[in-house]
């Protein structure tokens, strides 16, 4: 913690590589990391704990339950594997958008942001289809402990994706309106952090809920 004390830290790390033109103000921060970025990381720490609570409960209950259905017999694994792929795609387009704006390649930035939103929305659609089918097959939150856990964890993840898509759509709108520049694009970076985190959670969830 001590080195945060340094008041004369060089320009913030990360991707603020050049000071572009336009209406740029200097905001004082002690550490050189922007408030919104710092705040997002701090928020993500608490998200880790939130999912730890849910996933931890799952692990504990799972080990205590002698008979656990083989996920593949209940869930549609190929579909979800494809969905995982969709989410990974959205993550890479996200990071490409950030890289693009840092190069002042605004055309690509817009393209990649739009793709990210689309991938995110697509993920949600697939998840909705998956839920719909499962519910029709009689697999629901109160049918078994597996059902309880499946719907709670994936549901809360889906809720996070939904929030992400909304924020993302907002950022994309701003980008299309040309509000971001090489020097000023903190929205993209901050929302991106959140977006990647949601992807990260899914990577874990997919593995432990669908594949065990």
């Amino acid at each position: 913690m001590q080195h945060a004390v340094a008041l004369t830290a060089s320009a913030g790390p990360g991707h603020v590589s050049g000071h572009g033109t336009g209406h740029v103000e200097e905001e004082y921060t002690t550490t050189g990391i922007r408030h919104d970025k710092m705040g997002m990381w701090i928020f993500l720490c608490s998200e880790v704990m939130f999912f730890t609570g849910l996933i931890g409960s799952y692990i504990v209950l799972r080990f205590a339950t002698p008979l656990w259905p083989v996920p593949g017999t209940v869930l549609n694994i190929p579909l979800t594997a494809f969905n995982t792929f969709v989410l990974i795609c959205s993550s890479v387009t996200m990071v490409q958008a950030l890289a693009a704006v840092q190069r002042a390649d605004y055309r690509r930035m817009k393209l990649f942001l739009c793709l990210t939103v689309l991938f995110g929305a697509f993920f949600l659609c697939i998840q909705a289809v998956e839920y719909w089918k499962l519910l029709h097959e009689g697999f629901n939150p109160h049918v078994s402990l597996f059902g309880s856990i499946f719907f709670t964890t994936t549901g809360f993840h889906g809720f996070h994706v939904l929030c992400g898509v909304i924020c993302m759509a907002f950022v994309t709108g701003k980008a299309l309106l040309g509000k971001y520049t090489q020097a000023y694009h903190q929205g993209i970076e901050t929302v991106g952090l959140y977006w990647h985190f949601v992807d990260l959670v899914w990577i874990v969830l997919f593995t432990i809920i669908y594949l065990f």
Partner: protein
Amino acid sequence: MQTHALGPIRAARRHIRTALFFFASLLAAAAVRAAELPRWLQLPEGVSSYSARIDGMFRLILWITGIVFVIVEAMLLYFLFRYRHREGRKATYTHGNNRIEVVWTIIPALICVVLALLSRRTWADIKQNMPANALPIEITGEQFSWTIRYPGVDGKFGTPDDIVSLNQLHFPVGRPVVATLRSKDVIHSFFLPEFRVKQDAVPGMSTRIWFDGMRTGHWEIACAELCGLGHYRMKGFVTVETDEEFNKWIADAAAQQAAEQAPPPAAGAAAPATAPGTAEQQPQIQSTGGAAPPVPGAAAVAPPGGAVPAKPTPQLKTQEKPRS
């Protein structure tokens, strides 16, 4: 206080002396651990064989914390008086003293670690090591009563000769009882104040505890965990009695039970009216002490995770099983 430069060092010395004094008083406290405290500082009469150990621990902590309390409050009051604001006196300028910090870190740490170590043994003997030669019973809580079940002649639970009693726990004096606690609905807590017994009865789990009574008498069972609107009246009664009285009570209960279920064929299985006495208890002694699993927990739902290990511990001779 013009000696502000020397202040901290002197203070440190003084504090070290205080600390030594404090240590000495601790030793003194340990010495008087057994000494009688005034009535209002005592717990109710303890009637189980381990109540004295719990009370001893309580007394020791009472002494230690009492001394700490007196020292801290006395210093506080003394400083308030001694260093009250007076015209013309300037406060000592010091930022602290590392030596004294170390002292008052280490001493409480030592005390606490010692307390933890002392507690550990007692705790293990009460909650971990089940005694051999015990009378097995099952206690089930429900809103808002206690059901106590004795295994009957065959020494097995879940058979028709089980003796079931509502809110009445009887057991013979001087003989340990191993109880398996369960609950039908919500969490209750089986509390025998005078026996220093408290253990939650959790639905979906079976928890084993043991206790005994060193003298005969009547006491109350309380429920110590909030379990709904009748929590306050979820009480029962304990009777500790001589072997003969206990056997008679069991026999009477069995007879009454048999009479109640006279018509159904259960009568046959009920091994008529429970031949009382030692004969009845023999099988239990062996079964509890020996291979633990088959008897008391047999009828029990396999606890979650199958954590109750079927480890047969062959030490029948020793009073207590080693920590598993």
